[in-house]
């Protein structure tokens, strides 16, 4: 199929492009790009279809470094079909899924199966993150080399900690042997037993607190082991200003560490728990305004590499419970782009920089080849209208998870088209 995306604002952070122009696509790849006036044809290219992108931004498809699909094991909460529909509706064309499926992704056969199941037309590309230890128990290493062959791009523990530091050291060393990236959340297993940030709100609401030390103690140990092993570590779901400071210092020192923050932690604080809103029950817990402000500034400066959705569909039965009993997690695939734009608007971050945090930067962490809007690169494209709004309601969310603290809000930006492999995977012009 030959496509002409006509007259949009092309933003391609990897190729450092931000200009009005036209994009030409054939056989699943970008074949040409014309920057300048916008709305012009390309000599010798006869499109079969023209997508009007006037007033829209045309950027590479979004990459989400953390999206739970709940397959295998929890198909009652979400299926590949429902979550892929959510992904493409959110302009996400590629995502990494954490290993905490049921059973966990600790066995090459499971990973092959998931990779195979997700390789369907109209689906976003799925990159499984393999389990670092068997059953995520933090005891025995997984067959990382074979898991990588089956399709794992990195290894991690999802939300589980490795309690035994000897095992953690060995896991990092073994991963470093093959230069496999390790994605971990910095959380001390003992200090993270509460349900809300240890502060004024938790004190007032009578919720068990999680001190910032839960993050900094784990991070300090982790950085020490990175120094020792040289493992490439990506720190997931950073939550505190103090944690960010430690990571920034570590990078200055030259350690091979990167990090991400979730859309929830970028926008919300513990105050948003309000009257025990179980949608604000998240892991790590929402922290103070000081922490959130530091995370917002860090993402703008690049001290934090990536913004992810941390998409976690939870069914109502597990969510509509008293705050401390409610399961952690929020749906997010469809909110990643709107919340990127909201942050950019509120913090006066240039649009191209903001888009980079959900496109080029996660592509760099994943090591995706041929990603961008230049000739020869894969035609995974998102076309969105930055002036339109997305209403977040139970009815409009395509994900099976309707759980999000942003429910009921109107957020900036609306996806018009999502292309995967040069094929239209989502057409939002009909909504």
């Amino acid at each position, binding site marked *: 199929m030959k496509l002409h995306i006509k007259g949009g604002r092309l933003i391609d952070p990897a190729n450092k492009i931000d200009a009005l122009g036209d994009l030409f696509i054939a056989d699943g790849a970008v074949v040409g790009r014309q920057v300048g006036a916008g709305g012009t044809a390309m000599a010798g290219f006869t499109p079969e279809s023209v997508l009007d992108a006037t007033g829209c931004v045309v950027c590479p498809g979004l990459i989400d470094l953390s999206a739970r699909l709940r397959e295998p094991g929890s198909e009652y909460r979400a299926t590949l079909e429902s979550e892929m529909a959510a992904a493409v509706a959110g302009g996400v064309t590629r995502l990494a899924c954490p290993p905490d499926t049921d059973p966990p992704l600790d066995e090459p056969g499971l990973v092959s199966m998931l990779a195979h199941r997700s390789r369907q037309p109209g689906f976003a590309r799925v990159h499984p993150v393999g389990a670092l230890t068997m059953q995520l128990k933090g005891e025995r290493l997984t067959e990382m080399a074979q898991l990588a062959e089956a399709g794992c791009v990195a290894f991690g523990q999802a939300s589980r900690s490795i309690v035994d530091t000897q095992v953690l050291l060995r896991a990092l060393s073994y991963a470093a042997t093959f230069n496999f990236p390790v994605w971990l959340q910095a959380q001390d297993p003992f200090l993270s037993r509460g349900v809300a940030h240890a502060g004024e709100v938790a004190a*007032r609401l009578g*919720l068990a607190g999680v001190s910032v030390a839960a993050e900094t103690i784990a991070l300090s140990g982790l950085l020490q082991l990175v120094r020792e092993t040289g493992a490439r570590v990506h720190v997931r779901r950073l939550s505190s200003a103090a944690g960010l400071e430690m990571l920034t210092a570590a990078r200055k020192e030259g350690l091979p560490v990167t990090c991400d923050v979730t859309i929830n932690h970028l926008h919300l604080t513990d105050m948003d728990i309000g*009257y025990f*809103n179980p949608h604000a029950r998240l892991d790590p817990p929402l922290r103070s305004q000081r922490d959130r402000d530091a995370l917002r500034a860090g993402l703008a400066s690049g001290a934090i590499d990536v913004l992810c959705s941390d998409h976690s569909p939870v069914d109502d039965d597990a969510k509509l419970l*008293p*705050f*401390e009993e409610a399961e952690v997690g929020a749906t997010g695939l469809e909110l990643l782009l709107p919340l990127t734009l909201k942050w950019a608007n509120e913090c006066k971050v240039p649009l191209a920089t903001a888009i980079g945090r959900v496109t080029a930067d996660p592509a760099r962490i994943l090591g995706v080849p041929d990603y961008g809007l230049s000739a020869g690169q894969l035609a995974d494209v998102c076309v969105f209208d930055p002036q339109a709004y997305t209403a977040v309601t139970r009815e409009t969310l395509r994900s099976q998870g309707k759980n999000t603290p942003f429910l009921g809000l109107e957020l900036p930006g609306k996806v018009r088209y999502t292309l995967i492999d040069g094929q239209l995977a989502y057409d939002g012009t009909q909504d």
Partner: protein
Amino acid sequence: MFSTNPQVDRHGELRHLLSIEGLPAALITRILDAAQPYAESEQKKQPVLTGKSVFNIFFENSTRTRTTFEIAAKRLSADVINLAMNTSSTAKGETLLDTVDNLAAMQADMFIVRHGSSGAPYLIAQHLAATGRNHISVVNAGDGRHAHPTQGLLDMYTIRHYKKDFTNLTVAIVGDVLHSRVARSQIHALTTLGVPEVRVIAPKTLVPAGMERMGVRVFNSMSDGLRGVDVVMMLRLQNERMQGALLPSTHEYFKTYGLTPEKLALAKPDAIVLHPGPMNRGVEIDSAVADGKQAVILPQVSFGIAVRMAVMAMLGGKA
């Protein structure tokens, strides 16, 4: 759904009693005023809630609180149904909101709820509102570590009874504030009613982070904290807290934070001593104090019934 305070309606009237936080001083005073005739009346039956069904839904064991609610409801002529949920359907896997739906279908007018998780009564009130059953009132009879508003109110009634005016008092709350829903309700009530100095006295392990932001002064020693106070409010130390890493032993706790006549002597000579019960003698309080003339622990119990009657009458629309 979870962003607005559901306990006061748009006219400022009480819809539910979920927490003292957010109640205006005038409304608290109205509840205390409404309790006074009940406290002073000899009459044991009043036709205030005739024909109304009050459901005591207790997900946590309690004899004392459940009984006082039951007595209060019966004195107001309501029909009382007691449900001990830990032995009932929730143990069979029914969700909290399913239980609520079922009980609501039995034409309940009021739910008195005790639950082990902070915020559970909010979830119930919000669910009732979302499903168009606003006529059912919810009274929080203690939720997790969060709130025990009728206890807070009866404590205020007791203080007002003995001290008349809140605006010249120094009040000390002593003990396990970290796990105490009673302490949180007391703090909100005292600060709202204009008590100029509310103190909290406890070892650092039993004070949550950010405590001082609730408007209290935190003391770690009894000798500093009790000096010159008008009211001492003791908290119960749960047995299960006594082992482990929070406190080394009951013996040491009593030595450092137990209220003895010697420590009480640091307070004003006319200071009163409150305790929400049940007391652990020799753990948080010495028998000489518990049975002494400064203790007002038994009057608290009788006032508690009057205050609960006032709250129920107000929610039932007749106060």
